[in-house]
């Protein structure tokens, strides 16, 4: 299985994500420049955290106009797994692959800590190795992670089981404590917490491992079909 990690100017979790794939599931992974227009040969797309274009204007807003975006949208239509973490999640909402928006944290401050997340949907290609309702320990680090959507959208994503992770308690003001959502088709996941920072006990938690294992396993299952 081959992963692409998209690198925008100002991305800063790109290497973490690269190492995560390499070290946790030993899959092939390549860093892809934001000016590229082809993702041929890749099976999955990872959009890393960071501050693309400094997060100037609004997080993810300027990255949404980079050349690679069109190609990412095509990959989404093809049903390839696309995972956006933190700034990656913000970009996915900015380009409309996921509903809603990420606003400044309610407390108006950046927040970095390791939090409890509840797995709300363990039937996705990203979470199949987790148990439903499992509590996992994953770091967050964001200033604009306050998920917002209007009531109609909220009902929709609830009805479609699109909420994949919730914070166990309110950390940033997100609607319904939402920490991560998936698209209706089930191949595009955006989340604020950083599973790539939770792969080894020595740095605090290895609860992120199952996410990468899920992606690999789902891929293998599809290939073997």
């Amino acid at each position, binding site marked *: 299985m081959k992963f692409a990690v998209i690198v925008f100017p100002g991305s800063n979790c790109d290497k973490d994500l690269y190492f995560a794939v390499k070290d946790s599931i030993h899959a092939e992974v390549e860093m892809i420049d934001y000016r590229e227009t082809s993702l041929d040969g890749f099976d999955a797309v990872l959009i890393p955290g*960071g*501050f693309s274009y400094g997060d100037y204007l609004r997080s993810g807003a300027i990255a949404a106009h980079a050349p690679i975006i069109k190609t990412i949208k095509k990959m989404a239509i093809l049903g390839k797994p696309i995972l956006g973490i933190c700034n990656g999640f913000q970009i996915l909402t900015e380009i409309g692959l996921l509903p809603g928006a990420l606003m400044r944290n309610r407390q108006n401050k950046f927040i970095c800590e390791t939090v409890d997340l509840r797995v709300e949907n363990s039937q996705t290609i990203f979470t199949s190795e987790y148990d439903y309702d499992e509590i996992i320990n994953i770091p967050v*680090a964001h200033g604009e992670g306050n998920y917002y959507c209007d009531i109609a959208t909220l009902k929709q994503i609830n009805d479609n089981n699109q909420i994949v992770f919730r914070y166990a308690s309110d950390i940033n003001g997100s609607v319904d404590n939402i920490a991560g959502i998936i698209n209706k088709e089930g191949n595009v996941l955006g989340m604020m917490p950083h599973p790539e920072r939770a792969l080894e006990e020595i*740095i605090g938690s290895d609860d992120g491992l199952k996410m990468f294992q899920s992606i690999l396993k789902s891929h293998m299952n599809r290939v073997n079909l």
Partner: protein
Amino acid sequence: MTEPTAEMIQETKLYRSWGLSDQEFQTIANDILDRLPNYTETGLFSVMWSEHCSYKNSKNVLRKFSNKSERVLAGPGEDAGIIDIGDNQAIVFKAESHNHPSAVEPYQGAATGVGGIIRDIFSMGATPIALLNSLKFGDLDDAHTKYLAEEIVSGIGGYGNCIGIPTVGGEIAFQARYKKNPIVNAMCVGLIDHDDVKYGKATGKDNLIVYVGAKTGRDGIHGATFASDEFTDSNNTQRSAVQVGDPFMEKLLMDACIELVHEHSDWIMGIQDMGAAGLVSSTAEMASKAGSGLILELDNVPQRETEMTPYEIMLSESQERMVLCIKPKYRQEIIDFFTDKMLDAVVIGKVTMDGKYKIYQQGKVVCDIPISGLVDDAPEYKHVGIKPDRITDSKEQFKPEIESLEDTWLKILGQPTISSKEYFYKTYDSQIKANTVVKPGSDASVVRVRDTKKAIAMTNDGNSRMVYVDPFIGGQMAVVEAASNLVASGAIPIGITDCLNYGNPEKPEIFWEFEKSVSGMAMASRRLNIPVVSGNVSLYNEFNEIAIYPSPMIGMTGLIEDIDNVVTQGFKDSGDLIYLIGETRNEFNGSEIQQLQMHDVKGSLNKINMDQVESRFNLILKIITNKLINSCHDLSEGGLSVALSEAAFENKLGFQCEVNMPTEYLFSETPARFVVSVSKDNQKEFEDLIGNNGAKIGFVTDDNRMNIKTIDTEATIELDEAISIWKGAISCLMKKN
């Protein structure tokens, strides 16, 4: 505007307002140039001879520091010090102060301080792996102080988070003297392979000088002089020296410079950041180090504003800019390399061999002076110190009054200087890069070195109360305390960087504090074989003539050979035995409890037995490498009562202890003591090792209680209550109107 002529400058003594004395001006005219300097030249001399750039008031004192050890690869004089950590790897680190800019524009002042120190690290070719910061504010009962604290902390986070370097530790203290003059010191640590080290040199005739990064504007002109000036209510007009940081630009610049050094080392001769005194300081120093000369063409310097004068271009402190010295044949490759990374790179000059600093604008020579005059001939002043009246030789100690141990204990835990700093450090990304093994909240922060068993421990420390009451011993204590933090985490201390924050050195009492405390730090660092490899001096920290406490900050790094040996301060298991290592004495001068009960600190400090300190550090490191303990915490502000509490808080485990000492000794601040916890299985081996260097004082419990018995009393407090006081104190003060 037409610039004043050389004669007019001499006549009106215009140079005085730029910080040059009559004597200095005469030296320039008579001894160095043999003519009067023109406007631009006077400006260049005035910044290069400012305290900030030339250390003219402090050089003599700084010579006390030792910068040698078997590990030192580069010491002071470079952008940052370099220390060997084995396997052909080294760490590069330095600290820098940004006190004055932060007083004026706290967010940007602090942010650009962080930006500046990061450039010092990557300009050596190193990859930054961690940031720390030392902050000192006024008391949190004042709206302006809260505003400064809030903005300074968000500036530090804003820059560090955006650029993607974890902010892993630091210190924060509060004292009324910092009210209008906060202390903002930032430290950066980088990692490098020996072969990649680059020095800021402009060598080789006809090699080119390349400017990279942000455009030059009129921001921060005379920032270096400004940093060497004191604040009063009335000199608000000076305040044009505000710069806005652009962490996005810096991220591009950092990644590009590191890649250049790694992949195309042969293209470049030298690389240097533009910090204080911008273009002039960076280029003149590069030439001075190489013993060469320079020609600069100002028309080529990228400019953000129109009609900038040579004076403005040379002195601008616009941020996020670098200077390279390159081989001419790679000119196009280098320009293309940076263009691809969204950065402007422009050739602005070349290296000559005549030792001259020649600057042209629109074909005219605007400056022609010897580099050595500018860089090396800066005057050096030897001030004479006078002992301030408050300093006493009396050995009398403050005697705390403790009516209820419970009350005093809880009160101490709720003091801002003691209480958790989480409210602030939670806003820093401490985990990015996924290498942070010990995050903020323990004695030292620990970052692993990927693909090795090694880790680097680091800390910022400097208890200015102790330095205030007794500069020499207080200086020693700063080093001992920083080393204690590292040792407690299992690291061997290997190097020091410092920020020396004081008042106006032209006042004899201030100079005395400065000189004595540096002597103390130098003595301790020599004795413990921890060399001082870089640092920074910030003087004139005064507001309306009242100086801050003498506030040296020690930034110390340590090496952990085997990451499995990392120890943290929190108790791990109920039933583990608790030991206190080191003797507790009747020592309360300068302590937290003195401050709490007297609202002031005074008295003298007892001599520190450095032999004992050294052997104790060795002992702790030995019990850690022998894997005999489950936690280790050094005792600092607040003494044993606070250390035990903090050890309890981390994993919400209580304790039951009995000590053979009077109640007030729980708050004694005798340095170099440790609280460790040991599982029963290791008891025998552990006790054999420590002999009479420590004593068992109790055990860890899981009943939500902290209990202590002394020779005259016994107290129990609820763990939950203590935690909520300790954790909530700062946020409570910050939110109160």
